[in-house]
């Protein structure tokens, strides 16, 4: 344990060499921009910069690429908070409370919490990475299709928490999301589903594009249809500043979010976005004032941002200890490792310890750089609230369209985002919340894959779900989450009846 921390310290010292600092800085700076630009996410950012970064050579190349990844995690929340448009997939959950806070005139506080949460999540992520890499990598492998199914059931059960007041509408929204997730090539059976013969939907509909439309465009359509034109909201200068006391206020949520993010992130194939959903759901579930969530609760920013940062560091573990890319972004990083002439695999740690620990060191220096950069930028970014919407929205719409287009250089994608925006507008007008739709779109495909893969290996026998320990625990927790409100209500009814009968007796 102590030895690992010493190695990490050595790595940080190596990472402080000017060339590496510079490469890391370039990486985090580009990452921030990629994150801020709606639509472009970490995977696309790292992939686009791959050829350039490789020219830095060796450790600097990987430091820059990893920096882009972490920078995007920091930057994604900026547009989520200020404009209600997710900058990338893992910051979708941040829209809910972050944007509500900005509307209340607390943009600086929300942005500040993004920085603190990202820093705490990142720090916990790096320390766990240094201490637990090898044991946790083997433990993560225990997560097969069966466990994945159970985990997804648990995550989806949190819809009952996130769905708002009307359960029926929440589930309608959820199922629409799951249906959208089915469009494209059937991942298990083979044939295409619901593509209407178009090759554009063959690979399915990119979740980020839907999220940008559903949250971003719909919010703009709503404000266009209401009488907001030209009006300036009242904002004090203080509202632009981060509030350091919030760290203490959210300490439990920050730590819980980081731990959830870390352990979900290390499992290959689940991803940072799913971890933010779990983290947010748990934060709301365990909160003393769950009704504040969704109305601009600071904890609603802390939970997903701590989780997605911790998750991004955790996703490095399978890559560096086993040579397995667990996500789209780490798959590109694996390509990067190969291109600089390294052989990622179980022996990388043994054969190239200096390289691995130096790269881990740059994770730390990158994290510090991001905190300083984003804290300095916060007041300037937050001052966007002073800009009239009549001026702001045309520019934002232009940037969003550019961001969506640049994912695949496809105008069809832009059209899809606009359609998602119209759907989001209709949903808001009819009183449906779009959050369960997003949950269904992200978690539904993972659930489908989990169930169908498990049943292929078990030859159609569903009893495996209650034969494996991790799966049993997760399914039990799912039942608890679903039944809790019912039990609570039941107890309350019984209790009031008892009191009533007592009164009658008296």
């Amino acid at each position, binding site marked *: 344990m102590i030895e690992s921390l010493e190695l990490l310290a050595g790595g940080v010292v190596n990472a402080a060499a000017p060339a590496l600092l510079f490469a890391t800085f370039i990486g985090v700076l580009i990452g921030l921009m990629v994150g801020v630009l709606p639509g472009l996410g970490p995977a*696309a950012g*790292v*992939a*686009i910069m*791959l*050829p350039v970064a490789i020219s830095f050579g060796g450790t600097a190349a990987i430091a820059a690429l990893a920096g882009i990844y972490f920078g995007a995690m920091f930057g994604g929340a900026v547009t989520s908070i200020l404009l209600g448009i997710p900058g990338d997939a893992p910051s979708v959950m941040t829209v809910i409370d972050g944007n509500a806070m900005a509307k209340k005139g607390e943009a600086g506080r929300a942005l500040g919490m993004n920085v603190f949460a990202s820093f705490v999540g990142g720090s916990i992520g790096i320390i766990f990475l240094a201490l637990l890499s090898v044991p946790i990598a083997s433990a*993560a*492998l*225990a*997560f*097969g*299709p069966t466990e994945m199914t159970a985990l997804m059931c648990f995550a989806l059960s949190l819809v009952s928490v996130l769905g708002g007041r009307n359960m029926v509408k929440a589930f309608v929204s959820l199922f629409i999301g799951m249906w959208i997730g089915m469009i494209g*090539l*059937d*991942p*298990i*059976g*083979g*044939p*295409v589903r619901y*593509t209407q*013969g178009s*090759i*554009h939907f*063959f*690979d399915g509909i990119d979740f980020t594009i839907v999220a940008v439309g559903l949250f971003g465009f719909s919010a703009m359509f709503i404000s266009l249809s209401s009488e907001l034109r030209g009006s300036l909201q009242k904002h004090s200068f203080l509202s632009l500043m981060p509030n350091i006391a919030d760290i203490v206020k959210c300490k439990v949520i920050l730590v819980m979010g980081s731990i959830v993010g870390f352990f979900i992130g290390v499992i*290959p*194939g689940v991803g940072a976005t799913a971890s933010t959903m779990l983290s947010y759901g748990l934060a709301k579930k365990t909160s003393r004032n769950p009704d504040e969530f969704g109305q601009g609760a600071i904890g609603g920013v802390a939970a997903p941002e701590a989780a997605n940062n911790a998750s991004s560091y955790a996703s490095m573990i*399978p890559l560096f200890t*086993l*040579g*397995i*890319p*667990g996500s789209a972004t*780490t*798959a*590109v990083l*694996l*390509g*990067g490792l*190969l*291109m600089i*002439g390294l*052989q*990622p*695999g*179980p*022996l*990388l740690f043994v054969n190239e310890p200096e390289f691995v620990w130096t790269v881990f060191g740059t994770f730390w220096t990158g994290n510090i750089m991001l905190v300083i950069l984003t804290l300095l930028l916060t007041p300037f970014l937050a001052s966007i609230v002073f800009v009239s919407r009549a001026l702001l929205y045309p520019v934002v719409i232009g940037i969003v369209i550019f961001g969506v287009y640049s994912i*695949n*250089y*496809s105008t069809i994608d832009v059209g899809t985002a606009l359609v998602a925006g119209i759907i989001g507008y209709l949903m808001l007008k009819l009183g449906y919340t779009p959050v369960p739709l997003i949950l269904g779109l992200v978690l539904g495909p993972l659930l489908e*894959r989990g169930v169908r*893969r498990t049943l*292929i*290996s078990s*030859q159609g026998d569903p009893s495996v779900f209650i034969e494996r320990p991790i799966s049993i625990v997760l399914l039990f927790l799912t039942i608890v989450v679903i039944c809790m409100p019912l039990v609570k209500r039941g107890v309350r009814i019984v209790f009031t009846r008892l009191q009533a009968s007592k009164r009658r007796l008296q």
Partner: protein
Amino acid sequence: MISIKTNTIMAATTVTFAFAMSVSTAIADEKFVPDSTPTIIVPFGAGGGSDILARTIANVIDQLELLPTNIQVENHPGGSGARGYNYIAEQRGDPYTIGTVSVSFFTTPLLGSSPVDYRDFTPIAAIAMSPYIVAVPEGSDINDIADLKSRERLTTGTPGVVSDASLLSQLMQEQSGATIDAVPFDGVGEVLSAMLGGHIDFMFGNPGEIEPQLEAGTLRALAVSTDERLPSFPEVPTLEESGYDIEHVQLRGIVMPMEISDHAVSYWEDIFRQVAESDAWEEEYLNRFGDVPRFVGSEEFSGILEETNDLYARMMNELDIEQ
């Protein structure tokens, strides 16, 4: 043969087409010399296997200064390769558009989701060969391929429902009589996790994917899918030695649009021959990804494209995937 007009050649099958080309170029007097920048189109996103292949080729061509011009790489991702391949095919007659062949080059059209298929391209060459290795986890009680054959029921993982791994597992199932349940995952990373976590019994993988695990002793190789044993794994038998009639490898192939001149075909064939035979290629691609050196010219490659397509067509028919 030489007197046949170009149009007639176009109408003939790809095999005769390419054959006629190479014959007619033999007596050609004027030569094709590139005067604008050729582009390698990658029908997938940056950072993936096809992208790395294209960028390495471009690097090697640059380093060896094989062209009088630069060469560039462009990504056209979308539709499981359909968008990019469609784009290449649309550049009819353009001797500056180059594409690389992947599994999706065959399977996406077979799924009925692409307006173009392998017949809409001019085969140029194949410049490397990637074999498949059958592997089990270190602690598996399957000791050799005979053990594997004796099992009645096995589970394997594939990187996608239509992939070389599912083709191979289907062929093995047909020939051994065992039932092999193939679980489709998303990419080879997930297959490796499932393998190391003990959720599947065995897997197929390229040397580039499997070699680090073999070196670390986390996986054991049982057989290779080539016709001869691999120099890097002399002790691992081929599937044919083990009693299977299976030989299937992935060729790193190069195609161009239709209707490009005979001179251009032989020019590019020659460029890619020089790439395939260079030290830079060996160092930057073959050694790095565990590929086997192999050069296949336009004519032979054209026949291979057709055979490979038939193989995938049959697999998808067996998997009951509608076309």
